[in-house]
């Protein structure tokens, strides 16, 4: 076999997500009243990028066979924080951005520490930390408000050279600066190995704890980039419980659509990004076909339900029923 075929096989999940997205987007833009224009792309991109960041964050943790149910709350918390600190002189704005990203990473690191050293189940630990993060967000913004440096915000949500949405450029940059180095580092390799088979990883002397810690911390960082962008789009901070929860939920949906296995060890953050974009586009399809927007949550829920059920097909290959029980 040729090299490219192995590459294809390895990236099948990711490529499938890209394919679904492209198909959905073609259907979407060709039926959109305004057609395929920079404006349509920009609006779609700005909506999709938020979920893309959160989905990336989720993907990192899921690759280690964990789960982060606080990711939407970190997103909300950093949104509220940004609405306080990303204002003022350029220097203050820069500092503000760093503070927001730092707090996001810290939230992720706390999750990681509780899971690794506290030996709690990721699911309960992150539900609980999610409550804490939401509480802090609520303390920061009891009611929606605050602001953000508008020059920066407009630059981030506008278009580069009048064509390419700036948010997509930032997304690509984050992939290049965060995801690519991580996935190619020894730690990233260890994260995959840990997620695929923790026992085999241990036997092979892989740094399991370091890998998990890095995954959770980077997850917090990526969620905070998402939170920052939410602030750029809305110009406000809003501690909305439902929105935070929805992002957590959609991030899992995006990860599954993006070919990242919930059992760990398989998939990539790039897949998760396209999963997120596809998920958003599917949700928006209803609009261009003039469905009542009321149907959107149901439609998204059903897509999610179908996506998670797909993974069950491997079950029919199990020959020893004891394998059901792990």
């Amino acid at each position: 076999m040729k090299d490219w075929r192995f590459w294809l096989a390895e990236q099948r999940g990711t490529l499938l997500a890209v394919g679904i997205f492209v198909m959905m987007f073609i259907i979407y833009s060709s039926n959109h009243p305004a057609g395929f224009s920079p404006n349509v792309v920009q609006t779609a991109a700005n909506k999709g990028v938020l979920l893309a960041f959160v989905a990336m964050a989720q993907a990192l943790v899921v690759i280690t066979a964990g789960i982060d149910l606080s990711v939407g709350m970190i997103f909300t918390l950093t949104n509220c924080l940004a609405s306080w600190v990303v204002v003022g002189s350029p220097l203050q704005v820069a500092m503000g951005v760093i503070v927001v990203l730092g707090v996001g990473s810290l939230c992720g690191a706390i999750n990681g520490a509780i899971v690794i050293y506290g030996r709690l189940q990721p699911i309960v630990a992150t539900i609980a930390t999610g409550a804490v993060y939401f509480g802090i967000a609520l303390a920061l913004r009891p009611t929606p408000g605050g602001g953000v440096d508008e020059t920066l915000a407009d630059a981030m949500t506008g278009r580069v050279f009048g064509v390419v949405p700036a948010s997509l450029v930032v997304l690509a940059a984050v992939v290049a600066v965060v995801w690519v180095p991580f996935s190619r580092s020894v730690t990233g390799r260890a994260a995959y190995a840990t997620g695929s088979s923790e026992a085999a990883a241990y036997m092979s002397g892989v740094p399991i704890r370091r890998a998990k810690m890095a995954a959770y911390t980077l997850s917090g960082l990526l969620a905070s980039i998402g939170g920052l962008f939410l602030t750029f789009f809305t110009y406000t901070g809003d501690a909305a419980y439902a929105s935070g929860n929805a992002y957590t939920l959609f991030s899992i949906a995006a990860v599954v659509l993006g070919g990242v296995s919930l059992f760990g060890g398989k998939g990539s953050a790039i897949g998760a990004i396209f999963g997120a974009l596809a998920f958003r586009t599917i949700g928006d399809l209803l609009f261009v076909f003039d469905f009542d927007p009321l149907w959107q949550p149901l439609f998204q829920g059903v897509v999610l339900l179908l996506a998670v059920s797909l993974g069950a097909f491997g079950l029919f290959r199990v020959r020893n029923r004891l394998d059901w029980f792990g």
Partner: protein
Amino acid sequence: MTEAAPLFCMEGVSKRYGGVRAIEKADLDVTAGRIHAILGENGAGKSTLIKIMAGVVAPDEGRMALDGRAATFASPAAANQAGIVCIFQELSLIPDLSVADNIVISNPPTRFGMIDRGAQRRIAEEALARAGASDIHPLALVKDLPLSRRQMVEIAKALARNPRILILDEATSALTAADVSKVFIVLKRLRAEGLALLYISHRMHEIAELADECSVFRNGQKVATYAAGSKSDNEVVELMIGREYSHVFPPKPTRPKSETPPVLETRKLSWTERLRDISFSVRAGEIVGLGGLDGQGQRDLLLALFGVLRGCSGEILIDGKAVSIASPAAAKSKKIGMALIPEDRKTEGLMLPMTVRDNLSFAALDRVSHGGIVDREAERRLIDDMIKLLGIRTAGIDIAVGALSGGNQQKVVIAKWLMNQPRIILLNDPTRGIDVGTKQELYQLLRKLADAGAAIVFYSTDYDELIGCCDRVLVLYDGAVKRELVGPEITERALIASALNIDMAEVGRAAVTA
């Protein structure tokens, strides 16, 4: 040729698990440029020996020296560092990563902090070539490879660590004949390169072809080291025999062959590549043993009978009628009346944190309940009977079963199934890790159950038990019944010889002439 100083030696090394000694004052010398084969029957201490060498377990006492300097290994990584690399039976490959990723997993080449994929690819290709497996593509995912290819990757992974001592623990058991010959060429080349190889296998012809010297282990001790080819198969079997007889077995009844149809019968039972055309039958009152080396399909056979395995072909007959058993629930139903004493009492037989009461009645809840409501009085009576019958020593029935001794735990597992009054009892190595006293009680119990009309299938890794308890023994090799031993034919010599798949006639002749 001058006698080279040993590269590695161990002296007086012992290891105990609980009260059970795995190896006792074992010695071993390993010389560079030689292939050293280790032989021994189940439980002779082979695997403990290599685990100690590979840093997986720490010895209780004894000395090890590498290059004449004292050595201790705190972890597998430390042993690797010192140049001792072990290829274990249970694969340590990561299924979702590529072959190349796996080969360099413990120490990937990096450039600017990132894994250098070019270098990784070169290392992997080189290692695969050294292992004689250039046909495996370095980018293929391990989980997509068949078992035999994975084993080759495992060997390549070991070679990529540049070992000085390479330990192969049944490393060829999953390989095809073509692969085995390739691996042999590789191993011989490695020997020529000056590596020391430790080769554990039960395939006598492989050892004859490959080894320079052999050591035989028995009862956790090395009993002999000899130059390969200097002893006949028969002499080797002779060395392996001689486990201490410490058990007293109940007398076997001599009863005429009954004409009733067998309670349990299989016809050409097969499952994946693990079980091949197994046909046998068990009558009421009979104890049929399963012998052979560990992992030859005995466990799979019991699971297949008990309705756990999917996609079995062939037939299972109960009382002469074909049945389909799709789950343990079906297997234990009144119509079939089967019970399985599983392999691992801690994960399959018991719920350790739960009480003796809950565990005992768990498989027989139907018998102590009406309409789904447990009749605690009836439950307690039945439990009391069982505790008395098996002599389970417990401070009460409401303490956690995990607090009991190993032997008593095992009694609970058996009692739990006897509460269901099974007609067919399958036992998967039930005496492993329990004390001698309890073992003897179990032998008595098995015979008592058989006399009461139960049909018993008894897998044991202890040949002594098979000899002492069983009316017949089926010896499995590579998922198929290699030989059936009846009555007086069941001897340690016959069991070991057929477990090793040695031609019996030859061994028999040798024994007569000896």
